[in-house]
């Protein structure tokens, strides 16, 4: 009897020792929460950022890729040569790369992927990235030659987007629910409405990641997000939806807060064709009536960097133009009077769902009231915003964060929803596209920023911050978001 009991006790002890030993080993799984669930998992046929968050660099890779600091480095292309006239790119692919289903990744797959994106019936949401591609030729299994109709200084940058990842003809049919890529993680399981699991790819060509499995959980409600972090149900929250809760996480030694920058220029978008906004004096008056810091403090609880043009402050080519539209009520009133609106006027302010727009909109409406402008707030859903504001151009003002990287080129499109038409700017963009030397490009980008700031096209508010929350032991999360991505290859536990 006593012997039996001793054996039981000792086996229990042994078990608990082994459990402890297991805990001493670094954790190799992680649960990361994000607000929105991807509609499907094909990054080449939808605009939803949630798709990229899950699959970018984890499941799918492109010829080039973004790093966490925004730089573009070789991806599946080991190196490349650019012809002297800048129109022919010859990519040398990495040898021995296989897709998760075992098929080889070679030049045929690259041709397939690029042809698919440029095809007439292509469903690529960023088809413009591929616009200059004339032909894609397979030279040999590891060499592919891309010919452009004209030089394009941002071609390698474009190829780093999630919309330009390399897919295989063998697995393309199931890509939306069973994505097969070349990345360090293979698709595991998708419990729709709940979570997606990725597992480490044992045959990955690059460095073996520290994680074995990763689970993405979808928590859209800000209160639920807070509870899930606090209860330690999730290990990290990719972009935490409630900035007001961040001080609480900062004060708690169990967590850390990662404040970085996104590519999102948050602007008071203005309908340049709708009177009275077709008058530059009115637009300038708007710009001077806006107190950016009050909006950042009030709507974003202090997170966000003021901007004075449509350009990300972390970009080396950034020029600080916030002084151009400094908060100055007297000047704003004088400008309005000069334009013939001494008593102000009425307009509409369409606000999409994100809190930067809804909260920011309330503050802006109050600020505009100071100079006599009555902005009627209209809350809309995204689908409605797309239909009436973006496609229908039926709006006066709206607040939106333009989250695509390096998207100043939208000002060269007169049909774009804020309807800015400037031949000077269009020429500038054409020059930029045909320029490849980095310092030359920076100079042109600086001019472009000044031009739209001086034309007061839109009210430039702030660069949207990326607010990550994680358990203290999680290492390697991207602080900034040069593109929507949760790069699992860099993540490890330090406990």
């Amino acid at each position, binding site marked *: 009897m006593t012997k039996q009991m001793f054996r039981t006790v000792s086996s229990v002890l042994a078990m608990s020792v082994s459990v402890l030993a297991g805990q001493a080993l670094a954790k190799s799984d992680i649960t990361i929460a994000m607000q929105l669930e991807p509609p499907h998992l094909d990054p080449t046929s939808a605009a939803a950022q949630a798709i990229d968050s899950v699959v970018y660099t984890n499941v799918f890779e492109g010829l080039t890729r973004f790093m966490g600091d925004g730089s573009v480095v070789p991806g599946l292309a080991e190196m490349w040569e650019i012809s002297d006239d800048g129109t022919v790119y010859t990519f040398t692919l990495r040898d021995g790369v296989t897709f998760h289903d075992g098929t080889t990744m070679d030049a045929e797959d690259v041709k397939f992927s690029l042809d698919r994106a440029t095809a007439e019936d292509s469903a690529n949401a960023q088809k413009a990235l591929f616009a200059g591609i004339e032909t894609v030729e397979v030279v040999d299994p590891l060499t592919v030659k891309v010919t452009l109709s004209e030089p394009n200084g941002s071609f390698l940058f474009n190829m780093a987007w999630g919309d330009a990842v390399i897919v295989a003809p063998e697995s393309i049919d199931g890509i939306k629910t069973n994505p097969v890529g070349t990345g360090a993680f293979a698709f595991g399981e998708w*419990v729709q409405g709940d979570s997606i699991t990725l597992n480490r790819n044992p045959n990955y060509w690059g460095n073996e990641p520290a994680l074995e499995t990763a689970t993405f959980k979808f928590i859209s409600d800000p209160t639920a997000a807070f509870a899930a972090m606090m209860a330690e*149900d999730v290990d990290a929250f990719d972009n935490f939806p409630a900035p007001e809760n961040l001080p609480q996480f900062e004060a708690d030694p169990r967590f850390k807060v990662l404040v970085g920058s996104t590519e999102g220029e948050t602007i008071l978008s203005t309908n340049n064709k709708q009177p009275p906004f077709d008058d530059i004096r009115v637009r300038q008056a708007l710009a001077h009536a806006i107190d950016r810091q009050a909006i950042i403090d009030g709507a974003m609880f202090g997170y966000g960097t003021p901007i004075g043009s449509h350009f990300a402050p972390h970009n080396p080519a950034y020029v600080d133009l916030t002084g151009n539209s400094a908060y100055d009520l007297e000047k704003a009133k004088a400008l309005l009077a000069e334009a013939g609106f001494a008593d102000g006027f009425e307009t509409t302010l369409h606000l999409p769902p994100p809190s930067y727009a809804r909260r920011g909109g309330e503050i802006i409406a109050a600020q505009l009231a100071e100079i006599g402008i009555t902005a009627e707030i209209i809350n809309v859903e995204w689908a409605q915003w797309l239909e009436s504001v973006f496609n229908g151009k039926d709006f006066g003002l709206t607040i939106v964060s333009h989250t695509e990287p390096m998207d100043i080129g939208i000002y060269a499109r007169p049909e774009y929803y804020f309807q800015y038409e400037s031949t000077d700017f269009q020429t500038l963009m054409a020059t930029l596209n045909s320029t490849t030397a980095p310092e030359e490009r920076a100079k042109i980008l600086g001019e472009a920023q000044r031009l739209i700031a001086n034309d007061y096209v839109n009210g430039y508010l702030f660069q949207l911050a990326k607010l990550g929350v994680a358990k203290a032991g999680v290492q390697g999360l991207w602080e900034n978001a040069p593109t929507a991505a949760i790069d699992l290859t860099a993540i490890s536990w330090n406990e």
Partner: protein
Amino acid sequence: MLRYALKRLLSLILSLAVASVVIFAVIEIAPGDPASFMLGVNAQADTLAALRAELGLDVSKVQRYFNWVSGMLVGDFGTSYTYRTPVSQMIADRLWVSLPLALYALTLSTLIAFPAGIYAAARRGKPGDLAVMGATQLGVAVPNFWFAMMLVLIFAINLRWFNAGGFSGWDTGILAGLHSLTLPAIALALPQAAILARVMRSALLDILGEDFMRTARAKGLNPRQALWRHGVRNALIPVLTIIGLQFSFLLAGSIIIEQVFYLPGLGRLVFQAISARDLIVVESVVMLLVFAVITVNFLVDLAYAAVDPRLRSRT
């Protein structure tokens, strides 16, 4: 009886047909194009057209309506625009969360409401009754998402007895599944229990004044025996009606609770589908819920008629 049943069946079919037209019309009128929602702000016109064709959005609305209805008649609810999986499968997956959650909440609410209502009725006007009535007043007044947040704060964040949300899935075991549904079920059940307890109490009080109760007492039963043998049984009729209504409410109306606890249920599916303009999903789920409610009503009608012959002759 057969004629009555046929009549009811005809009205059921008519109701469903009318409902399908209304649902389709209302949802299609809402502004927003599913294709442009999916492709975002940089989509080109030809890309949008290609996607619209792929989704079958390029045919007329009338034809889309008939495609949808004729599909449903053979059990094909179509394919989700965004998820690209069959809607019937999505609904089935989500029902595995929403249905058990609704049943769990209903069980809890009944288990709380019955004793509370009977206790209060038996002690009418006494402190016990007042306490129960006060508590139910509070339960009716406080919204369930607030209850939900309080439950999370206490039992998930502070005590760590439960997860703050999420659903572990039934394949991890029935107990684990029930465990992850417990807080949401309580949050859903409490306000319903409060309503049910009040109904139970007032139904009982009505019954207690009836002649047959006096007869029961006269036969020598003490008040408690009379209450249990004759009172409770008769009070069950209105109570069961309320429970039936509550069940359809719990199944369809747990959208907010599913958001707070991020549960992959039917409510959350509808919520996501509406914002993504996944019209076919919204239409099919709403239609299914209407079908469920109308069918339940049909069965209840038949049951009433079986019990009460007066209903048969009247219609």
